């Protein structure tokens, strides 16, 4: 739009006749998909790819495909793609680099999320080191692979093949071309019932039908090591759901992945719709906070079911707690949650009866989350008499469709949906799984203001450990969650107050990394792949 290619000549110079022609052909689409800055970066990246001297293919396919990636995920992903492609130059042929770029719109569309796309690029980097002959055949079948697997599943499938056929290149190629029985078998194993990207549109429509407004849904990738996805969570008004779900076998019959997705999405939406102000967690013990959350989950579901009665059975059938469960606080939460959700659930224990009567006692005030606060505080007192240890991270109600309730304590005070757009410009703090963690590049010079800080929930011991973890050697207590000040949100052009109460849980001490040495696990299984 308005932007003239010739005005940018100095940015890209002479790309060779073929690339130059493709650039002219792609320019219009590019200028529609990219901002003026993004366009300049796009041209610079094309230039850099040209200067690699790996032939015209990588440049040509970048020029052609980058706009599609920008349309799917935004232009940051284009920059990441370019960077990744440049970094691959020392490890592989121009043909493979071109293929990585050519398949990137497929990856973008199937992954549906910029963070997952970045993880995809990082994974390719790992794979180039571990199974150099596998990358091409895999990319040639990417559409099918990502049609059946999540990124985590694909990664496990690929690393399995890389392990098994590390030195036998022909076998490696067959594995990655899905031509060997072991390849197909592992694919079957990793396959998940329902992929988020395949149902995202219908979930969004469903929520809009119910509440007449938009909700932002995004996929999150599970821990690469396990097949379990992450729990859903709500942050900055965005509902994050696992990137795939299996069907569930339940006492009351099978629940398809789509049904579970619907239960998840509707539960999260119920929080967003019926919780009007944040709870203050000040002075609460973790057990109190968690008990309050159990009541709050029940409260928003009750309100939602008042408007949409059919939601109650949708949620109810996902409850499986029984009176026999009593070993941990989480077991009790599960029983209480079930008792609150299901009037037909019989549980003779007085604690369960007490939970029900507390809920009823506060029913008049159920429009406000104060009711959950009162009921939760009272019940937490009774629960503490069980004298069971409470572990906030493990002890939850066991209900996979419910989010982790961080939302209850932490969101903008002015609950303004018009102003509720996903934020993109803040520091990302993530707690990650071990594999994701160790495969990451560190930035040695980064400090607490790094773009991303990842925390590992468990202690990490160096390979050459002497019984001392990284934490003991160089750890420091992390700073509290960043405080946010009112900011101008350029995306929506609205001033948004950022009175989000800070987290109630004390900052967790964990293994923190910030670094860029390429740092890979030196366990026997992956030795020899350091790049």
């Amino acid at each position: 739009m308005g932007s003239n290619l010739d005005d940018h000549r100095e940015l890209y110079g002479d790309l060779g006749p073929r690339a130059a022609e493709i650039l002219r052909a792609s320019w219009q689409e590019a200028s529609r998909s990219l901002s003026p800055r993004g366009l300049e970066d796009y041209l610079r990246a094309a230039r850099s790819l040209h200067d690699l001297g790996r032939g015209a293919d990588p440049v040509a396919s970048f020029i052609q495909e980058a706009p599609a990636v920008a349309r799917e995920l935004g232009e940051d992903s284009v920059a990441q793609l370019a960077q990744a492609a440049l970094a691959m130059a020392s490890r592989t042929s121009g043909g493979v680099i071109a293929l990585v770029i050519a398949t990137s719109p497929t990856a973008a569309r199937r992954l549906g999320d910029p963070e997952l796309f970045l993880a995809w690029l990082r994974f390719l980097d790992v794979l180039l080191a571990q199974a150099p002959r596998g990358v091409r055949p895999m990319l040639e079948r990417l559409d099918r692979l990502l049609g059946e697997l999540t990124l985590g599943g694909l990664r496990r499938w690929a690393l399995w093949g890389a392990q098994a056929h590390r030195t036998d290149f022909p076998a490696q190629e067959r594995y990655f071309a899905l031509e060997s029985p072991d390849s197909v078998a592992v694919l079957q194993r990793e396959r998940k019932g329902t992929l988020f990207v395949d149902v995202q549109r219908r979930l969004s429509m469903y929520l809009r039908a119910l509440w007449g407004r938009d909700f932002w849904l995004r996929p999150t990738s599970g821990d690469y090591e396990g097949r379990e996805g992450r729990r859903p969570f709500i942050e900055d008004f965005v509902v994050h759901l696992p990137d795939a779900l299996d069907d569930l076998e339940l006492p009351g019959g099978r629940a398809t992945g789509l049904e579970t997705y619907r239960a998840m999405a509707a539960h999260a939406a119920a929080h967003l719709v019926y919780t009007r102000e944040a709870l203050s967690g000040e002075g609460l013990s973790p057990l109190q906070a968690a008990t309050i959350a159990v009541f709050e989950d029940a409260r928003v579901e009750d309100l939602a079911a008042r408007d949409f009665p059919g939601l109650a059975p949708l949620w109810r059938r996902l409850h499986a707690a029984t009176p026999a469960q009593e070993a941990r606080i989480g077991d009790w939460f599960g029983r209480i949650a079930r008792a609150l959700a299901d009037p037909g659930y019989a549980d003779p224990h007085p604690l369960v009866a007490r939970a029900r009567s507390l809920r009823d006692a506060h029913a008049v005030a159920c429009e406000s989350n104060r009711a959950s606060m009162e009921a939760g505080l009272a019940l937490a007192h009774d629960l503490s008499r069980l004298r069971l240890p409470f572990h906030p991270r493990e002890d939850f109600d066991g209900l996979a469709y419910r989010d982790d309730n961080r939302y209850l304590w932490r969101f903008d005070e002015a609950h303004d949906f018009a102003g509720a757009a996903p934020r993109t410009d803040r520091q990302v703090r993530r707690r990650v799984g071990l594999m994701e963690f160790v495969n990451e590049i560190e930035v040695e010079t980064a400090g607490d203001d790094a773009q991303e800080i990842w925390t590992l929930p468990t202690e990490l011991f160096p390979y050459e450990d002497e019984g001392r973890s990284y934490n003991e050697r160089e750890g420091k207590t992390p700073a509290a969650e960043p405080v946010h000040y009112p900011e101008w949100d350029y995306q929506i052009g609205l001033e948004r107050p950022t009175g989000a109460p800070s987290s109630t849980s004390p900052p967790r001490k964990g293994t923190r990394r910030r670094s860029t040495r390429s740092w890979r696990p030196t366990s026997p299984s992956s030795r020899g792949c350091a790049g």
Partner: protein
Amino acid sequence: MTRTDDPLSDYRVREEPWYRPVADEVTLFEAAWSARMPMMLKGPTGCGKTRFVEHMAWKLGMPLVTVACNEDMTASDLVGRFLLDAQGTRWQDGPLALAARHGALCYLDEVVEARQDTTVVIHPLTDTRRALPLEKKGELVHAHADFQLVVSYNPGYQNLMKDLKQSTKQRFGALDFGYPQREVETEIVVHESGVDAAVAGKLVSVAERARNLKGHGLDEGISTRMLIHAGALMARGVDPVAACRVALVRPITDDPDMRDALDAAVTTFF
């Protein structure tokens, strides 16, 4: 034309068509009628426009001549034409000429569907001339004192090619017909389909869900008419979820994602 003494006999409304007023449309229409002001009823399909005109015709004691407009319709279809028969050629008034000559309400349903060169024939009838030229016959019909023109128009069709000309629009007074308020719509569904108020209320709730998706994957919301269809199936013993599928969801969209979302919305009530 069965009886020679009353050419409009076929068009008399003998029994009261049940109509549930939604706002002040009945009084406004009566006032417009007494001024013989041409009226335009605007609103989505199936929200009661036709029923309203029928009811008003009955109330005013006027015959009602209805024309469903379509693209293939020519001016002759409205005005009239010469017919060939044993005796030679004979002029036959079209519906518009019939209503103008003898004094009736003439209702042009979905007037945008007609081509613009067809619609202009109503122009002289809808200004102070109140006359209809029958060009082929060489006659100028002066409209009967009781003649009134009513047209309906669905603004939901955002088709520029099909919009009415300003010179047409500005000849009419207009009444907006939306979907009725939930209590009113429930009452209508009860009356027309025979289901009880609880079931009708749920049907209206389902319709509200689909109306939330208008412009977000649906071109048009679920109409009152469709709810009556669903209710009629239920009143005949069809399972509610199946009735909603057949009468509401399947007709309104072919998009599999949309069907899934709407089916799921149905199960939040039935």
